[in-house]
């Protein structure tokens, strides 16, 4: 499971029938220090998360299980909204520098 921040939504009309009724959110993966890391991904949502919220999400087969019984063909799903993060890193393992962000295209909304 990974941390992320909800930065947008996706709508689609023509889609797999099992996806009907599920929200699709754009999630920016973040570090515990709230720095962006890696590329944004599209997640299903099992928690009614909203824009700007910090969440944690699962990937793989478990992403479908989170939305049982419809089990849509998702490979990433938000399974919790984070209220607080308590970080206490030992001195010998400082935070890794954040990876570069995903490529931005001209006119990208989020």
């Amino acid at each position: 499971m990974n941390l992320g921040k909800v930065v947008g939504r996706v709508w689609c009309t023509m889609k797999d029938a099992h996806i009907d009724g599920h929200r699709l959110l754009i999630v920016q993966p973040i570090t515990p220090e709230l720095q962006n890391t890696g590329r944004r991904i599209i997640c299903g949502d099992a928690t009614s998360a909203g824009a700007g919220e910090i969440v944690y999400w699962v990937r793989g087969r478990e992403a479908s299980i989170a939305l049982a019984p419809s089990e849509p063909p998702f490979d990433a799903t938000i399974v919790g909204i984070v209220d607080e993060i308590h970080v206490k890193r030992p001195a010998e393992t400082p935070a890794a520098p954040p990876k570069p962000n995903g490529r931005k295209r001209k006119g990208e909304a989020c």
Partner: protein
Amino acid sequence: MLIARVVGELVSTQKHPSHEGRKLLLVQPLNLDGSNRGDAVVALDAVDAGIGDRVLVATEGFSAMTAVGRTQSPIDMAVIGFIDLIDLLPGVS
């Protein structure tokens, strides 16, 4: 499975019902020399680990679910043990 260090805890009230009653830990995967490997990840706790512990983390769904005792639930990482000692052959790092 990964070698990792517990570096934090998450508080979450609105979450999947299968995660209730278990601690959510932030774990930082480590290389064999103890340096950080990639970003910290979120794992459910199956052994009552705490901040600062060096632990073993299952990174696949079935093993993580089984360790936590909740099959058919959206869990893909779980802390499944404490690491006391890592013994390497000479020259391996």
